[in-house]
């Protein structure tokens, strides 16, 4: 991992990787969306609204996965002062925050015809809302101490402490009585019918690839902005 601490070396890999992730992500997402909207049959119980599953689940996965990424990058920033760790965490935050918001929004739209309500203050929904607020707080904090570079401590500590919420979201459906259904996909198997499940793999991997592309694009943007700032400073002092 330390081999990529050099921004020039990182950029050499990040540029082609961005293009690959974008291409793969767009193709897989398009197949998944077409499959979910037009090819799979309606669910025997929920009817057509089951099609929301194929965007809601990847949004939840990426919202939680994004914060896990922030926590790992924060640990690397604190322990090894990896110069790209803070850049990576700051790049993940808006993408993770957007997917946490999309999870809440699509879940709310799904909840109205399924549960008869747009919102319920239960364990799963509330802990996901807390995650969205954590993203907002992290972005504000990281922007405030961006100039301190790898020496900044408040944002990475916040990133690590906020990771406590990830297992709370995951186990909320087991710990508390909730309107939200329990886990339907586990490592040992699934309760979802194969004809409804298959587009989910496409949207899951497709949106994950696009998430990766967005993170790389935002890291490249920050590195270019740092380069511009350094260049302008040199010009001004000359």
């Amino acid at each position, binding site marked *: 991992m330390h081999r990529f601490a050099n921004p020039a070396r990182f950029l050499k890999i990040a540029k082609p990787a961005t293009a690959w992730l974008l291409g793969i992500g767009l193709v897989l997402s398009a197949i998944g969306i077409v499959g979910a909207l037009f090819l799979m049959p309606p669910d025997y119980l929920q009817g057509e609204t089951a*099609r929301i599953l194929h*965007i809601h689940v990847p949004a939840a996965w990426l919202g939680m996965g994004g914060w896990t990424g922030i926590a790992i990058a924060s640990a690397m920033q604190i322990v090894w002062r990896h110069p790209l760790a803070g850049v990576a965490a700051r790049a993940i935050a808006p*993408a993770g925050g957007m997917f946490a918001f*999309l999870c809440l929004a699509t879940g709310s*739209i799904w909840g109205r015809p399924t549960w008869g309500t747009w919102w319920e203050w239960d364990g799963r929904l509330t802990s996901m809302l807390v995650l969205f607020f954590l993203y907002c707080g992290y972005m504000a904090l990281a922007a405030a101490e961006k100039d301190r570079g790898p020496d900044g401590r408040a944002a990475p500590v916040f990133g690590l402490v906020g990771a406590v919420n990830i297992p709370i979201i995951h186990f909320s459906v087991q710990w508390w009585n909730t309107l939200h259904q329990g886990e339907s996909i586990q490592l040992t198997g699934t309760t979802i019918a194969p004809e409804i499940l298959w587009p989910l793999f496409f949207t899951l991997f497709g*949106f994950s690839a696009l998430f990766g592309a967005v993170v790389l694009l935002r890291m490249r943007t920050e590195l270019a902005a740092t380069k*511009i700032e350094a260049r302008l400073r040199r010009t001004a002092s000359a």
Partner: protein
Amino acid sequence: MNQWAFVIAAYAVFLIGAGGLLLWSLLACRAAEDQAEKLSRRK
């Protein structure tokens, strides 16, 4: 209750949000890298 109205609304919100994020990141990256390239070419 027309179930398709909820499905279309959910997909519209998702595609606008995720597509907007992707487009914003793409344009910001292109603008920043172009400016950095121009500055590095300038003596």
